[in-house]
């Protein structure tokens, strides 16, 4: 089966000499919900713009559904719905008129079904009541929804969503996530760029991490977290005593942080350790094994948290 997106050595150097994307080999399997992660300035948006044919790569190739971009843009892009770097609208047009304009721009879209498709796209993102309002009167969240509606004007094989829940309230975020899950269940490949790691963890099957223009890692979400060890954590006021018990049980990397003591969970029998702690008179307020989150994996991989890359 052809990959939805495949790049080989994809690179982009801007005119200032800055290398924004450096030798990217990305592979997004068809049908995946693919999380695209990376700090600000790591080259995510530049990659998306190259995939959508908005900018041309300085080296390498990008294929979408096996067709080269940007050459095959007119064949490929009707199958793709995109939300790139936030929504953009004509402020003096209504929501429905905005969608009609984007739909008219797509020559493969049938004008006879346009009104119906606009109606159902607006309904899917919960904007039916604001369809005839001017876009300039929309709130940030409503604009985001309108941008999503534009991506959903036609049945798509691929959705490229750059931070789709940006500006949405928690309720709206949940709606969009469940919308993404519904679309993915119908077989649509979703390429989701986000800063919200728990969002990626909740909806994505695969993920890739970018850092300073390079691809650090890609794979299924499960394998990304697998590189990190689980930690056993004890909440207790008796830090020193607890640490001594853990060390006696051959625990590795024991650390005391305020009211918490934690160590590598590998090779330890959690129930036996807990009994030993209680037996040694350590007051245990909390006890558990913590699985590493994607956020831990992310920080471990990029080593730069959310700071803007230089």
């Amino acid at each position, binding site marked *: 089966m052809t990959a939805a997106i495949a790049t080989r050595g994809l690179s982009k150097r801007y005119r200032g000499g800055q290398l924004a994307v450096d030798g990217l080999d990305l592979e997004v399997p068809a049908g995946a919900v693919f999380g695209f992660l990376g700090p600000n300035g790591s080259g995510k948006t530049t990659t998306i713009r190259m995939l959508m*044919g908005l900018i041309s790569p300085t080296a390498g190739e990008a294929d979408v559904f096996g067709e080269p971009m940007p050459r095959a843009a007119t064949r490929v892009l009707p199958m793709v719905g995109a939300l790139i770097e*936030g929504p953009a609208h004509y402020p*003096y047009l209504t929501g429905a008129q905005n969608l009609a304009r984007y739909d*008219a721009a797509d020559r493969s879209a049938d004008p006879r079904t346009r009104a119906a498709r606009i109606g159902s796209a607006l309904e899917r993102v919960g904007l039916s009541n604001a369809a005839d309002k001017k876009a300039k009167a929309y709130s940030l969240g409503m604009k985001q929804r309108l941008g999503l509606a534009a991506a959903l004007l036609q049945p798509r094989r691929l959705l490229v969503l750059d931070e789709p829940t940006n500006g949405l309230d928690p309720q709206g975020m949940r709606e969009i996530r469940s919308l993404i899950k519904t679309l993915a269940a119908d077989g649509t490949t979703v390429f989701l760029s986000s800063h919200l790691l728990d969002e990626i963890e909740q909806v994505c099957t695969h993920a890739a991490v970018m850092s300073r223009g390079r691809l650090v890692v890609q794979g299924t979400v499960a394998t990304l977290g697998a590189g990190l060890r689980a930690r056993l954590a004890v909440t207790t006021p008796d830090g020193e005593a607890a640490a001594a018990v853990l060390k006696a049980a051959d625990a590795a990397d024991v650390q005391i942080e305020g009211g918490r003591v934690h160590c590598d969970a590998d090779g330890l029998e959690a129930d036996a350790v807990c009994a030993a702690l209680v037996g040694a008179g350590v007051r245990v307020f909390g006890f558990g094994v913590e699985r590493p989150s994607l956020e831990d994996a992310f920080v471990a991989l990029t080593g730069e948290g959310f700071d803007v890359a230089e």
Partner: protein
Amino acid sequence: MSQSSVSVMSESAVSESAVAEGGGAVIQASSSRPRVFSFAALHGSLAYNELATMFRRWRNIALLAALAAIPVALGIAIKLTTHNRGSGFIADVSNNGLFLVFTSLTLTLPIFLPLAVGVVAGDAVSGEAGQGTLRYLLVAPVGRNRLLAVKGSALVVFCLVASFTVALSAFVVGLILFPAGDVTLLSGDTISFGAALVKAVLITVLVAASLLGLAAIGLFVSTLTDTAIAAMAVTVGVTILSGILQSIPQLSAIQPWLFTGQWTSFADLLRDPVYTPNIVHNLLIQGFYVAVFGSAAWARLTSRDVLS
């Protein structure tokens, strides 16, 4: 005018769609009610959408309203001035309302019409880039060649609409405030009001055509930047510059090729027989500018990285 062009286009759309979509169901739909279907196809096209977007925009309506107000002010001023009427067109207006059309076009062509066209042309691509809608049109996908063609055609329509706004407003005001009747031409002959009206329409079309070179410059400049206001300023500035170069005698070598060079040539239609050399020269200049700057806009838009 626009009505007739719509029906012509819809007819060609019928034959095209019938040929293109040879399927049974479509044939049935288009042959039973061809007119309705073809109008729907036109209505759904990007070219129609571009015009609808253009004329839904409050700023463009305001520009046209300002253009329409100029003949009104001019007509009232001439009506109130009972002495010292000056010479040329203005003196003729009080004798025949139709001359208000010629006077208004003469007065608006150097400044107000270029201003309106410069704003709309300079905004054509840069405005879309600035508000971010360019990237969504491109991923729709609109196709860069098609987008430029649609933008260019819409500018031609705007030049016509702007010129006819001035002419129609002047015509109505002229009829209300001044007498109507046979028209004495610049060459001294007298023609009927109807024949003069035909000349007025032709002159308005010529004025619109005179703006095409400027529109092409504006379209090109608007592909260079994401800041619409800068593109507008450059486009209007180029018009002013061209006017200045026009008035420097030492530059007579380049003056025949300035796009403002033969702007006044439309008045030659008011002679009998019509004096055509300058009119033809003007159309050649405009065609030259459209070819050069249209190609430049195409080269720029089709190769540029869209980062907005």
